[in-house]
């Protein structure tokens, strides 16, 4: 030991370092698809617990039909999916074979040249298998860039209005008479009021945010507007967006307001339960959240189609979305494709999946499933699946872009500025202010878009 100049402890540390480094060097992490010699493993990442539960139930069928294939289904937090996938694509690291991605983050994968997108181009497979024509066409929009499709749509996410049926009845509102927004707003102005005389409004007709884009964009999509068009051009300040903004702001600011929002999901459920809000915009996925979060108001809730902008106009919009994509780096593209189609479009799984998630599938073949017509006690006995399916073909497209999130946030800023202006000045000069503000925010986005040399 006296031959060790710094004593035994540092030497031991050095030996441990060399051994562990050597072990790591000769035992690299196993890549996707590697496992036992006679077994192929397909790794799948999903971010939603409801999706995870639904897929877990139908994966054994796939494994039985494909001997020697094992599916490794993993539940990963939504933000972690996005950041880890992006880092993996950039650094050429190990990635799963299949990944579910949410609509708000998918645009960031479309930024680079087409050949460097980490997901497999599915356009030709979709057309060759005929799936392309069986799915609601507008649902390919978020998962496409430069006319190529990189993901299978999981859903349609048509939107209805959910309302407190008991309070509507108490207020004397008949939802069947609210065919247009004008009729809805007129009813809303009667019920939006201070109930206890303390000078604060205690009841609002609908959840609408005065600072965020979240509710606004649903109404913008209903009018056929959006942040980007099919060719990737920024449209957040076009005439449709301006008209929507001019219509929206008085609904959340000033004396005629009928909407308010105190926060998102958990707070929203409190507001609805307390009767502070009578309605809220409700895509199919949100119905399950309410069933889980506030079972106490079961039977007091109901759904109605969104009022139309003009008589006879579109009675729905869209909110949210998920795709499943196959990574280019996967060693098993064909198997991964089969698994993706099985997870999303296997007819025998639709009933169970709908009962678990309340999300209607985007493939029309599935719209005759009995589960869609089942009356739901929570929703006052309404067959909510059928209600959403009846609106599915009217669902407007929602185009994605690497700059979509920024466009959304800039729209939120424009809403905030316009609300502040409207509170102070009312209609006086409001239209000009809104136009200038919207254009200014859109120009911020255009400046960034122009800097991208890869598109």
């Amino acid at each position, binding site marked *: 030991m006296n031959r060790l100049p710094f004593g035994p402890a540092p030497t031991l540390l*050095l030996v441990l370092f060399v051994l562990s480094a050597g072990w790591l060097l000769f035992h690299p992490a196993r890549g996707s698809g590697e496992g036992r010699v006679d077994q192929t493993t397909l790794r799948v990442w999903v971010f939603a617990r409801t999706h995870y539960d639904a897929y877990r139930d139908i994966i054994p069928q796939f494994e039985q039909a494909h001997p020697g294939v094992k599916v490794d289904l993993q539940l990963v937090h939504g933000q972690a999916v996005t950041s880890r996938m*992006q880092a993996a694509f950039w650094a050429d690291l190990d990635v799963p074979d299949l990944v579910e991605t949410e609509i708000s983050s998918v645009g*960031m994968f479309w*930024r*680079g040249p087409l050949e460097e997108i980490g997901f497999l181009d599915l356009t030709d497979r979709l057309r060759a298998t005929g799936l392309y024509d069986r799915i609601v066409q507008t649902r390919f929009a978020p998962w496409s860039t430069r006319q190529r499709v990189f993901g299978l749509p999981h859903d349609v996410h048509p939107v209805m209005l959910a309302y407190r049926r008991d309070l509507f009845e108490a207020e004397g509102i008949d939802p069947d008479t609210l065919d247009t927004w004008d009729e809805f707003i007129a009813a809303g102005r009667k019920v939006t009021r201070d109930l206890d005389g303390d000078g604060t409004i205690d009841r609002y007709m609908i959840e609408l945010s005065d600072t965020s884009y979240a509710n606004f964009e649903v109404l913008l999509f209903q009018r056929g507007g959006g942040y980007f068009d099919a060719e990737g051009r920024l449209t957040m300040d076009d005439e449709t967006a301006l008209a929507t903004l001019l219509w929206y702001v008085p609904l959340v600011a000033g004396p005629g307001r009928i909407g308010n929002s*105190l926060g998102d999901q958990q707070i929203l459920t409190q507001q609805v339960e307390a009767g502070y809000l009578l309605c809220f915009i409700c895509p199919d996925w949100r119905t399950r959240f309410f069933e889980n979060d506030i079972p106490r108001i079961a039977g007091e809730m109901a759904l109605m189609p969104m009022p139309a902008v003009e008589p006879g106009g579109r009675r729905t919009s869209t909110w949210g979305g998920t795709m499943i994509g196959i990574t280019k780096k996967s060693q098993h593209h064909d198997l991964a494709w089969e698994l993706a189609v099985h997870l999303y479009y296997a007819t025998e799984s639709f009933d169970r999946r709908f009962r678990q998630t309340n999300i209607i599938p985007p493939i029309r073949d599935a719209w005759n499933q009995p589960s869609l017509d089942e009356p739901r006690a929570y929703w006052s006995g309404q067959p909510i699946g059928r209600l959403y399916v009846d609106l599915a073909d009217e669902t407007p497209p929602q185009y994605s872009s690497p700059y979509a999130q920024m466009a959304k946030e800039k729209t939120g800023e424009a809403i905030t500025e316009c609300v502040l202006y409207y509170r102070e000045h009312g209609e006086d000069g409001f239209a000009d202010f809104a136009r200038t503000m919207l254009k200014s925010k859109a120009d*911020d986005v255009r400046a*960034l878009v122009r*800097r*991208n040399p890869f598109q």
Partner: protein
Amino acid sequence: MSQPSATRFWTLQRKAAPYVFISPFIIVFATFMVYPLIQSILFAFQASSGPKSTAYVGLDNFRFMLRDPDFWTAVRNTATFAFFSVFVQLPLSLGLALLLNARWVRARSFFRLAFFSPHLVGQVFVAVLFSLIFIPRFGLLNRAIHAVLGMGLETKWLMDPSLVMPALVLTALWMYVGFNMIYFLAALQAVDPQLYEAAQVDGANRWKQFIHVTFPGIKPIAVFIMIMSAIGSFQLFELPYVLLRQTPGPNQAGLTIVMYLFSTGFSTGDLGYASAIGWALVLIILTISLAQAKVMGLWKRDA
């Protein structure tokens, strides 16, 4: 092996051993610090979509930064937060430290722990906690304000652009006042008690004792805390990111420089511009730290 060659071996080993022992650190440091640092300098002069798709753009990222309204919003927000951190948080910390250093205060250890404990749970926990406290109508803060003043039930702390920064500062106060208090306490306890006795003999009142004895005694620590607070404030990320639910807040009222850097790099995928923002942040922090040290006379030689 002959004796001379064995001696040479052990001599060589003695010379090489230190380098071998520090080599793991050097390798890790070079891989995870030096290489990314150099890479970020290169990126700052490129447009990029991740590290693979890059194009040289010269100073374009920096030119764009100068006229980018979002960057300046982030700078303004961060500077405002840093101002309150230094000029509100630190005096409060010092006041608390003075109070808890006084012998007449009972259960001092308990209060020291109580004031320090918010720091133990971390920024993310505190942000989640305060996001619940700040809920309008149903949240604890508004309920308390309404119970006392009969108003403010619907104050939208995190949804009103004018209230987001006060909410952030309040949250940070709760978290960091106790933490900085510990530093001040340590500094106060290091001041020689004989100096106070001498000052009392000279007829100095408490205020004069503070100005002429306490403050010079704690000045090196105070400068350190100020600089660290300013640096920490300019690196602010988790608190607003979680408190505002991964958004910059209404009208970007909660957007900080690091949040903007993060969203530019990891949401938009423009690592080049994100690197340029990072280097601008380095420059800002360096300038402010040097200015603080200069103003506080850190480099003055003692007479």
